[in-house]
Each structure stands twice: as C-alpha cells, then as structure tokens.
C-alpha cells in the first residue's frame, strides 16, 4: 500500500522556516530571485489561510470530485521534483530549476496534485520522487495561491519504484479507493 505521511498533515503544513528545518533544507526567509536557473531548493510555503483550510478539511479541490476517474489519497508530504521536458516554445518563460522541492497534496492512479513555489505550464513533463516511488507526470493545470505558492495537477504517465518493484502496490493502493473505476 502507498505510504502515508507519518505525522499527518501538520508535519508538512508548517509555517515558513519550520518546514525547511524539518526536512533538512536551507532556510529561506526571502524568496530567491527567479532569474537564477540553478538549483533552487526552496520548499513552497503554503499561505496561512490555505493551511487552515487543508487542516480543517474544508478544502475544495479545483477539480470537482465527480469529474475524477479515481479517488485521491491525501498525502501532504514533501517530495523531490525534477523537470523532465519543457516544450521549446515555453523555454523563454521562468527559468525553472532542474530540481525542486514540492509538497504532494494527493495522488491517485491517474493524477497527482502538489504545491510548488513556481508556476508550471500545462504539457511540461516532470518527475516526482515521493518516498521510494518515482512518478512521471505531465502538468495539466496550475492555480496561483500567492506569488510563491502554486497548486498544480498533473496526469501520471508512469510509476516506478526506486527500491524494489513496488509500483504494483501503488496502483493497488490507489485502485482500492476508486470512486468510478
């Protein structure tokens, strides 16, 4: 079965500074300049009102439940994002770092929702390493919460396990709670 975040949501939904401290990343009092396309290890900081909504479970996903093929498991834990492919025409946009840190909000057999400190465009291909799973996905939507917090949805194209082959567990874990198989 898919691993759930050990300490629940509050572990990941923490005020600025704390999250970076917990995960061993560098502190980030100021948002880094977006002109540098080098490694940007910032972890997205969720705005307080979003944090409260997520903790209070009063959060409405931007995609209505009835339009989803599969139920989503709430995850709320940090993961590593790598950029896999950006269509050339979009290259002149923000210089995305090759790697970054995200908070995975939820995932299902077909999709993954996460928070990132930069916007991504639909059709960009990414890879998210969540625990021992490597999830390849294509960005489908992006919604801004603040200038440093974007909520993204991506379509899962492939799941691999970085340890042993546990992608079957992943699929089973997601499928077991399907709304509309």
């Amino acid at each position, binding site marked *: 079965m898919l691993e759930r975040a050990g300490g629940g949501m509050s572990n990941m939904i923490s005020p600025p500074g704390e999250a970076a401290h917990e995960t061993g990343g560098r502190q980030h009092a100021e948002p880094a300049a977006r002109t540098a396309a080098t490694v940007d290890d910032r972890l997205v900081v969720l705005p307080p009102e979003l944090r409260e909504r997520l903790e209070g479970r009063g959060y409405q996903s931007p995609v*209505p439940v*009835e*339009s989803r093929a599969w139920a989503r498991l709430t995850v709320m834990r940090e993961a590593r994002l790598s950029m896999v492919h950006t*269509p050339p*025409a*979009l*290259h*002149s*946009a923000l210089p995305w770092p090759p790697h970054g840190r995200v908070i995975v909000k939820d995932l299902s057999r077909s999709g993954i929702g996460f928070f990132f400190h930069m*916007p991504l*465009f*639909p*059709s960009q291909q990414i890879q998210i390493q969540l625990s021992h799973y490597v999830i390849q996905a294509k960005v*489908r*939507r*992006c*919604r*801004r919460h603040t*200038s440093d917090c*974007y909520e993204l949805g991506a379509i899962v194209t492939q799941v691999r396990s970085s340890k042993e082959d546990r992608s079957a567990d992943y699929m089973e874990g997601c499928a077991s709670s399907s709304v509309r198989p």
Partner: protein
Amino acid sequence: MCDVVALTPRELVPISSCVLLPDRPLGIDVYLIKAIDSKPVLFCSRDQTLSEAKLDTVAQRLPGRLYVRCSDADRLQAYIREHWSDILRDDSRPLEDRTRLMCNVMRDVLADAFASRNIQRIAATADFLAAESTRLLQDAPVAIGELSKIMQHDFATFTHSTNVALYSLRLAQELGFSTDEQQCIVRGALLHDVGKLEITENILSKPDRLTQEELRQIRQHPTTGLEQLVDQALTFGELMIVYQHHERIDGSGYPVGSVGEEIHPFARLCAITDVYEALTAHRPYRRALRAKAAMHVLQRKEGVHFDREMLACWKGLVEV
C-alpha cells in the same frame, strides 16, 4: 457580355469587384444585376479575362452589382485565396475595398481551417493571415469604427477570432509594438480561442445559466488551446495569448489567476480586445452593445481586470 440568363437572384451570391484581377480568368461565370428588379446578365464568362482598362471601368462606374452562382462560391474562395496577396498589395485599389476583402477572406479562410480540426493547418493559416493583414494595415491604420462597420458581428468563433485579431493589430500599432510583435499578436489572437473547438456548440451558445460542469469546460479552453498548439511553430508570446487571455490584472481570472505583469503583455492586450469584441457582437444570450456602452463596461474594470495604460489607449482608438 449582355446575355440575359435564366437565373434567379436566389441562385446567386454577391461578390466584390475588387476580387477580379486583370488577365487571370476566374474560372467562374460572373453576372451583373443592374437594378433590383432587373434580370442577371452574363458579365464575364469562366474562361474570359478582363483587361486592366476594363477593370478600371468596373471599379469606377459599374452600373449595379456582380454575382456568382451559389454553387461556384467555393471556387471563388479558392481563387481569392490563391490571388489574395496580389489583390491586397495592389495600391491602385481603394484601401477600404482591400480592408473589406481582407476581413471577409480572413474569416472564410479561418472558418475552413477551424472546420478541418487540423491543428497544423490552423496554425499555418493563422501565420499566413497574420502576415498579410499586418502588411496591409502597416502604413494605413484604419479607424476602429471603420473596421467595425466592415466586420461581421456574429457569434461564430472564427468571426470573433478574426475581429479580435484586427482590433488587436490596431491596438498593438498604437501602443508602439514593432511590426514583428504586431504580427505575433495577430497570429496569437487568431488562435486565442482554438481550445473552444473542443466544446460543443450547445454549451457555447447556451442562452441559460451554465452548469458547474459546463463552466468548467469553458474555463478549460485556454489550457486546451495551449496544449494543442505548444508543439507548433509559435513563439512564447503567441502561446501566452492563448493561455492567458482570460487572466485579469487583479488575479480573478483563469486558468492560473496570474496577476499584473505575470500576465504577458500580448495577453493583457488581447484581454481588452477580446472582451470588447464579445460585448459588441451578437450573442445568443444577449444583444450586442454599441461601442460607447461596451467601452463603459470595460472602463469599470480599468486596472482591475484590464491593464490601465492599454485600456486608455484602446479608449482613444475607439473614440476617434
């Protein structure tokens, strides 16, 4: 040239005399109707050519109007497309005639491309139309009121896209964008609603309130458009017109909710012309507004939905 033919006006469609070119047979019979109650006469047969002098006479004092058979309308369109550039570049023809022809041809050609659902063809068509329209209006800026008179104002996506493209060209000229940038803006504007081709006509023209699901589909069109076009030979700015034309300065737009300068300038520009065109067009769910009323609606959202400077510039153009 004066044979009366047994055709009723219902079997004929009017054409502009400016589509006729010297020494190039149309391949279509052209008829002349001199007055409302007169019979059509054959003006120029399909294999006949017209001399330059004859065309001058036609342009200056043609007694009546020229027609072709309805069944030949497609052939005429093909002829126009083939010789369009030559006609538009012919300075001896009045600019107004050429602008009218350009409007009509842009609309027709775009309609055909949209109907094909072939994204490569649609992008190539937009490229060609953008080059020709930018060239024609480059040194001869036409007043918005004049453009509006020439334009069709129906609800079809290709009509809306053509009109938005031409309005955007005028605004881009006025704002001082370079010719290359103007061309990009026209290209992007012609394609801005391409994602709507995936939405059923029932939803697009629904006069009643849209359901949540219908609204979601409509709001998906900038994203769909970007995904469809991202691998075509388009620039970043052109893609941003497609993706960001429903964003608003205050962040209340969609799909992302980008604010201020996070929105590409081309998209901020097209956001203005898009809404202006929509307000002044006939829609199944409301009647068209006049220019002044439409401008009033836009101005209420100055600096909120729309870029303040760009809107001021657009206002200046509309009020001329």
